[in-house]
């Protein structure tokens, strides 16, 4: 589903590589944690998958497509296969929960009838049924992240990328979010989650890819946050 073939990325004006000859292969339906210190290259790794950045060397494949050869006008279609969740939720403050989720479908041209049917379904899935009319500021942090996950998942992407989704949440709330991501993963969606949260990684026992200074230093199935 996601394959990095000897990928290096050096940003303009920087001598040090953000990613250095990274080889990673993630299959369909896998749940993968991406761990490492700040500046280890996690965000660059995710940006390359979204084609927000291009690899300086090597090849990045997403769903079988070589992103280096992807025409810029085909990027939007490629991104529809990927849902993305961030630490800071990135909800639209002046739109209700339902409108926030519907927005993701409207802007890719889905018909209103589909939107009307699909949005309540996904809100129920993330445990927000009955809260569709609220504004983001009326929700707790955990609920806001659920809205963000609903928005990322509403178009049923093949891949869900989560960049520190529990970074702003307390441990109890984080567990709820992880259960939700696990449910989504069980529906055969590939989940790639960058995190600093060792408790969660240790509890979930999923595949762990650790980056250090732009290099993959560990790729372990059923791993933990640090070495045992």
């Amino acid at each position, binding site marked *: 589903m996601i394959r990095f073939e000897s990928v290096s990325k050096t940003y303009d004006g920087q001598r040090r590589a953000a990613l250095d000859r990274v080889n990673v292969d993630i299959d369909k339906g896998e749940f993968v944690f991406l761990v490492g210190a700040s500046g280890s290259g996690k965000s660059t790794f995710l940006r390359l998958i979204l084609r927000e950045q291009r690899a300086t060397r090597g090849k990045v494949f997403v769903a079988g497509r070589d992103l280096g050869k992807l025409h810029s006008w085909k990027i939007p279609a490629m991104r529809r296969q990927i849902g993305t969740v961030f630490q800071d939720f990135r909800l639209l403050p002046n739109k209700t929960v339902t409108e926030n989720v519907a927005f993701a479908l409207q*802007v890719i041209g889905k018909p209103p009838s589909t939107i009307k049917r699909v949005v309540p379904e996904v809100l129920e899935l993330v445990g927000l049924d009955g809260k569709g009319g609220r504004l983001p500021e009326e929700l707790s942090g955990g609920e806001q992240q659920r809205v963000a996950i609903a928005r990322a998942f509403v178009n049923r992407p093949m891949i869900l990328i989560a960049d520190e989704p529990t970074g702003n949440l307390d441990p109890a709330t984080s567990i709820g979010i992880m259960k939700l991501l696990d449910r989504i993963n069980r529906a055969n969606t590939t989940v790639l989650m960058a995190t600093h949260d060792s408790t969660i990684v240790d509890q979930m026992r999923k595949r762990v890819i650790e980056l250090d200074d732009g290099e993959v230093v560990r790729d372990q199935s059923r791993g933990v946050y640090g070495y045992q």
Partner: protein
Amino acid sequence: MRFRHIFSETGAGLRQNLTMTLAVIMTMWVSLSLFGAGLLANQQVDLMKGRWYDKIEISIFLCTADVSGDNCDPGTDATDAQKQVIQQTLLSNPEVAADGVYFETKQMAYDEFQRAYAGSPIRDSLTVDQMQESFRVKLKNPEEYQGVVTSVQGLRGVQKVQDLRQYLDPFFKALNFVQWGTIVASALLLIAAALQIGNTIRLAAFARRREIGIMRLVGASNLYITLPFLFEAVFSALVGAALACATLGAGVYFVVMQKAEPAIRSIPWIGWSQTGLAMLGVALVGLVLAVIPTLVTTRKYLRV
């Protein structure tokens, strides 16, 4: 493509940026009005030039016994042979219009003189024999008179070459200055309007950076992201252009048709057909001014 959503985004953008939208509309209004006025002035000057140039001819006065000139033999009229040479020279000149050479005899000049000074004591001061014969020459292009003038100026029997243009030239120079003045001034204003539109779109994109970020993330197409901005700019431009067209129409009606035309009937005045042409120009330029800065700005700020 769901246009309803795009239009609602456009409307939201216009409301969010109401003051900037108004500023753009007013700048467009003033600059496009001035540009339209420039177009109208241009057409007015062309009309006047056309009318006057039509009447302009070069007169080549021939020697008589009474007048003296460098190419005249003192005390004699220009000979038939000399007239023949002058006529041949004129007819063979490529700048001379077909059938553009006309010979005025002493008798014709005298008749004209009698008519012009009818009722005046000067009328009887000259005899037919004292009148000057002349060739009257019309040119294909009245601006290109210099070649014809020099070709006959040195010929024997030519007393004087008179070109009416030299009297009208300063006047046309002034008109040209007005023409170019309005065009340069409006060009500067139009550039300002284009820059302002670019800036407005940039502000609008900044105000909606969250939405745009999410649109890019969930895979909205570039066109979908750009269209609301384009519609916003086009809307402002069209309102500005409509106001400018109304201003031009009112100006032509109240100033030209009601005031100038009845007052000065001797020159042709622009009418609705010229005004329509100017309005068309205003609308086109307004549209281009809106679309190009928007595309340039959005390319820069909404890159995927």
